[in-house]
């Protein structure tokens, strides 16, 4: 038996101040929470069971909300339209609607429909329908006109039929009504003319609809106070032809026929409808529940303060604007039937939640693509949650098969095609698969080394060493410095052994083969001009950090060192390696490492290479100390800390060897001198600190003395 429970007021704030009452009440992604769009500028999110608002937002003064706010069930964000064309999308955390995502469309919107399990659909006033994602991807796209000139959309609703949204909207033109059914799995639009039957003159005041497997049961409340039902087929027999549907009387005179406005109708379940309006002329407005099967009035409730003639029904609650306040009336319908009483009733499954058939549904996959869930990813950051269906990308499949047998050239082409497609969330795993596939083939036939493809893949920024451990190995094997440099720049997780192996190759590879390689030189600036600055250079070398290393207290070593200062300067000032090698070494300097793991491997580097690397590092250091900020010129150069750390590392690892090499002697001496000067500076600073502390103490003592004194005062 259907019953209305005691209603309660949802808000203590007056709503519906505008001429059209509320714009709408819509479900949000959380059960029990509803978005109420006031006629003016405000959207409020209510939690019904707590009877309290959770948040509210409003558009700027001068703007007006033209369509009820809905929740995008896929992302949990809210969407509202103001000034007919401007979309606003925001989430719970946003405070100010002014600052949220905004999209201005080219045509005026009638409604946005959002339903669980599908992306929001935008219905334009001209009858066109678009998916939200597609619209946001290109907001200014042209929107076609579907309905004729003076036709006006009166009412619209969305259903899920076999997991696909079906949209119905009713238009009116010169007293004639038309129903349009838009299906999204097949993208068909069918038009029906509603034949009003004998009551030609009556005006339809309110619509509601429910869905069956094959029909949309459209109910309308006419101005004569009767409810009519029209069955509109979902799958038209002949979509091309304009079809006519006839309506039949369902319930007679449920509301007074002179009720001009303030009547509304909503279908509750198979057999029940709720009607809002005065049951008799001159009586107060009522909300009544009718059983359509038995044509009986089940229950009724008087709403003495008047309503706005709007009625919403979600879950178990009826929402009605009673007076100035939004009222929630819980509706319950205990199923009672003869069969139930006899205990023979079996609950049939609700047609709306039909399980999906297990066989392949071609419409489904097509629908997915067209529904732009996978292929058309919007790049907006606002999207926080993605309910993606992991579908193997056909392009990647094709590519993977191509890798197995095709030529490098062909693979490259396929790869370009694949990369041209916008990335999906599983993009990096696909890339990883491709790389391992390529390397697998390389292993099987060593002559196959798709260098260009690999470089392209590395530059997607999604690879890491752990995702394709074989890649650097292969590059090391091939001594492919270009790929190695890329890897060092891109991969965040290169093991120290590999770093060290790269270093070995970078130091040992001949200048000739380096000249051929295409190496990214951005970390190396043009050091050649340093020759001109040589004179100045000499001075900075002596005056490290403003401290003169030549002072007497610096020990005898200085004098030994300064015997041929001119030679030393010239020797150190020209870059010991060619720029390309410098670029490679810089990539090493930039890479992350842990001292513990790197040291043992550094010991394996041959002595002359260690010296070369040290010379290069020392050269970089001198370059650094040229300017006050202690940085190197150029884009992304190694930092002073990186240089110093590597000098220390190299010396720690190879000290015994380096000491024995005659070529390294001058280098070591200059490093020694440098360290010595640094120590001197530190000790001087310490001395100063002590004197400062003494001064401070003296100052304090002076204060202490003043805590008590006996003074002479003459007045």
């Amino acid at each position, binding site marked *: 038996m259907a019953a209305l429970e005691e209603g309660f007021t949802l*808000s*203590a*704030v*007056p709503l519906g101040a505008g001429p059209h009452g509320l714009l709408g009440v819509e479900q949000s992604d959380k059960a029990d929470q509803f978005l109420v769009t*006031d006629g*003016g*500028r*405000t959207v*409020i999110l209510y939690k019904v069971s707590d*009877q*309290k*608002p*959770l*948040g*509210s*937002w*409003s558009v700027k003064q001068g703007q007006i909300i033209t369509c009820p706010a809905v929740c995008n069930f896929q992302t949990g964000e809210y969407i509202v339209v103001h000034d007919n064309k401007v979309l606003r999308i925001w989430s*719970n*955390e946003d*405070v*100010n*609607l002014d600052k949220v995502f905004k999209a201005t469309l080219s045509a005026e919107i009638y409604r946005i429909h959002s339903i669980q399990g599908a992306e929001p659909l935008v219905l334009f006033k001209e009858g066109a329908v678009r998916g939200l994602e597609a619209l946001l991807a290109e907001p200014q796209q042209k929107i076609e006109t579907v309905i004729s000139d003076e036709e006006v959309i009166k009412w619209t609703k969305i259903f899920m039929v076999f997991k696909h949204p079906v949209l119905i909207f009713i238009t009116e033109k010169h007293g004639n009504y038309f129903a349009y059914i838009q299906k999204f799995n097949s993208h068909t639009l069918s038009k029906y003319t509603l034949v009003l039957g004998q009551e030609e003159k009556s005006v339809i005041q309110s619509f509601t609809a429910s869905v069956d497997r094959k029909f949309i049961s459209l109910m309308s409340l006419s101005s004569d106070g009767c409810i009519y039902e029209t069955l509109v087929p979902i799958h038209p027999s002949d979509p091309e032809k304009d079809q006519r549907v006839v309506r039949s009387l369902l319930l007679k005179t449920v509301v007074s026929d002179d009720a001009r406005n303030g009547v509304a109708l909503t279908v509750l379940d198979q057999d029940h409808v709720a009607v809002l309006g005065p049951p008799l002329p001159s009586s107060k407005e009522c909300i009544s529940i009718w059983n359509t099967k038995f044509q009986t009035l089940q229950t009724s409730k008087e709403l003495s303060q008047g309503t706005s003639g709007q009625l919403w029904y979600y879950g178990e609650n009826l929402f009605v604007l009673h007076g100035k306040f939004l009222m929630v009336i819980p509706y319950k319908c205990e199923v009672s039937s003869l069969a139930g009483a006899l205990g023979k009733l079996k609950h049939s499954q609700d047609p709306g939640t039909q399980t999906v058939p297990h066989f392949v549904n071609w419409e489904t996959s097509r629908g997915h693509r067209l529904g732009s869930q996978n292929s058309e990813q919007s790049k907006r950051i606002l999207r926080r949650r993605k309910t993606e269906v992991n579908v193997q990308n056909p392009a990647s499949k094709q590519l993977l098969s191509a890798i197995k047998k095709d030529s490098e050239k062909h693979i490259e082409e396929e790869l370009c095609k694949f990369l041209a497609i916008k990335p999906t969330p599983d993009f990096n795993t696909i890339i990883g698969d491709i790389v391992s596939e390529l390397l697998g083939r390389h292993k099987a036939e060593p002559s196959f080394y798709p260098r260009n493809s690999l470089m392209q893949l590395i530059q997607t920024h999604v690879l890491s060493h752990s995702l394709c451990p074989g890649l650097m190995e292969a590059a090391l094997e091939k001594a492919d410095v270009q790929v190695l440099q890329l890897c060092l720049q891109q991969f965040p997780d290169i093991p120290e052994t590999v770093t060290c192996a790269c270093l070995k190759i970078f130091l040992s590879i001949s200048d000739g083969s380096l000249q051929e390689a295409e190496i990214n030189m951005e970390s190396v600036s043009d050091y050649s001009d340093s020759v001109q600055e040589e004179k100045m250079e000499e001075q900075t070398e002596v005056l490290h950090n403003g401290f003169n290393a030549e002072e007497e207290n610096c020990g005898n070593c200085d004098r030994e060192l300064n015997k041929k200062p001119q030679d030393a300067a010239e020797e150190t000032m020209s870059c010991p390696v060619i720029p390309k090698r410098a670029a490679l070494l810089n990539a090493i300097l930039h890479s992350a490492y842990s001292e513990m793991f790197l040291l043992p491997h550094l010991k394996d580097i041959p002595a002359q290479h260690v010296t070369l690397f040290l010379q290069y590092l020392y050269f970089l250091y001198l370059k650094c100390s040229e300017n006050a900020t202690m940085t190197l010129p150029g884009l992304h150069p190694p930092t002073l800390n990186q240089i110093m750390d590597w000098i220390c590392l190299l010396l720690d690892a190879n000290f015994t060897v380096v000491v024995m090499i005659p070529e390294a002697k001058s280098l070591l001496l200059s490093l020694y001198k440098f360290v010595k000067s640094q120590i001197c500076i530190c000790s001087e600073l310490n001395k100063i600190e002590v004197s400062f502390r003494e001064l401070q103490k003296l100052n304090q003592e002076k204060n202490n003395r*003043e*805590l*008590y*004194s*006996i*003074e*002479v*005062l*003459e*007045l």
Partner: protein
Amino acid sequence: MGEFKVHRVRFFNYIPSGIRCVAYNNQSNRLAVSRTDGTVEIYNLSANYFQEKFFPGHESRATEALCWAKGQRLFSAGLNGEIIEYDLQALNIKYAVDAFGGPIWSMAVSPHGSQLLVGCEDGSVKLFQITPDKIQFERNFDRQKSRILSLCWHPSGTHVAAGSIDYISVFDVKSGSAVHKMLVDRQYMGVSKRKCIIWGVAFLSDGTVISVDSAGKVQFWDSATGTLVKNHLIANADVQSIAVSDQEDSFVVGTAEGTVFHFQLVSVTSNSSEKQWVRTKPFQHHTHDVRAVAHSPTALISGGTDTHLVIRPLMEKVEVKNYDAALRKITFPHRRLISCSKKRQLLLFQFTHHLELWRLGSTVATGKNGDTLPLSRNADHLLHLKTKGPENIICSCISPCGSWIAYSTTSRFFLYRLNYEHDNISLQRVSKMPAFLRSALQILFSEDSTKLFVASNQGSLHVIRLLEGSFKHLHTFQPQSGTVESMCLLAVSPDGNWLASSGTSAGVHVYNIKHLKLHCTVPSYNFPVTALAIAPNTNNLVIAHSDQQVFEYSIPDKQYTEWSRTIQKQGFHYLWLQRDTPITHISFHPKRPMHILLHDAYMFCIIDKSLPLPNDKTLLYNPLPPTKESDVIRRRTAHAFKISKIYKPLLFMDLLDERTLVAVERPLDDIIAQLPPPIKKKKFGT
């Protein structure tokens, strides 16, 4: 006027407590201030900002909210979960009611003054009905998720805004349900802070809610729609307090950076009726957090961690350019915290929870004006006496002979006997204090240290005879019938015959100790008494008032003295009247009966009644004339007021003997050095 050796004492390590709340009462033009140690002080803004009353604090009673209700009723609430009403006549706590909602963070009285709302730790907002003699719990509003840190009523009394953590709720008072929940942006300069605490809310009659929060924002909300209207980012740190003027045309906020911002509702263009809130003036009078602000019709009042109470007059609201138009910074209490034993050259310092006894040093050297003399003995810290229990000390006194110390808290009175044996001191508590001696507002020993006078908070005055190690209750002067006003100031004549006492508003009563009866009452004056003293020999009572007037009243003759009449007729020098701290102590020279010594926080003055009075044309603060000038000029420029401003801030000054003064200073720098470091603000660069 002579040469003095001055013991310049700076070791009184007194730190005023930080200000937690201020509440302004428009009706009586009084300001209630609560401090972090629980003390509540009442300033009379009409009486030259004099701190006329105070309620001692309590360790467990951290006051978080303070407000005035209908008439002159003062309520406070704090972290112990209690709502307290203060008795402003008897100067004690009338009652405490537990709100049963955990610590109370906020409190607001309804615009009609009949209801009291408190916001609790557990997220509840509780409504109390204010009955004529108590408060009565009425109901709870919808419970919120987190503590309610701020509350404000709509001027119509129908709605309430409550600031919590991360959101503001608007309640309907009738139903007690939350009508709106306005979420506050946690973002702070692009960085998401963990929480955004709404430190303060204000509700205007047009429905605008103004909130201040920990992200440095001042936000305007429309309570009808529950949406954000305007946002001002004013600080890099918390904005901690807000107060709106009664006309709702201006409001003031205080930030943790010590800045106070003034917002005003001004017309968009010169002749349009459309108005908008504009941040007009920033004031930087504080170094630390401004925890509380108030808005009087003519001034912005602010206080915070740096312990200053700052009253900044709004120049456009001040009509006459008198001393009300000047910025006031009140740092020190307007009562004495120091007493002195002249005989033994001892100083007793009163702190919140302990007393310190110091012996002054000595010197044998002499010198000329301005010299610092070498010490033959430095000052000694003799005693550190800690109170028992959580209550703060109200008052303390050391007897002139130095062998008695008495102090009182709200519920207990303590008397100690000190014995000196060479360099050793022994302390002995006098036990079994009589039941009536529970709480004292003022304690005084007679000059010969044989009598103890105690002003209790019921308006009665007890006279006790002190014997070696014991005491005897001699008499209790009951208050005049019909009055319950407590006596705050006492003075006894050096010969021990007269006792003068004064409350906060009624006149000064003079009692005859010999006959134990009321001798006379000095006619009451509009302004409260700030200091009292009876001169030796003549028994003239000198009274200083908060409007800087000084009267001399002859006790034997029961009338004002001739000198007092003369100076009232001629009037005080305008600069004298413009001083902004009250006179807190008056003393006399034993050998020069014409001299009166008095001091406030910034000057020390000797009035020589034999010299002509200064008029407005003469220099009030005249420095010592050069000695080479002839005596004639010297005499001509000399006038009755000899003022020295060497010692400041001066908390206490007294004459130890004919040629020796003691001055206790408390340099502000020493206080600042002991405060927590302020928020660093970059002065240069970005």
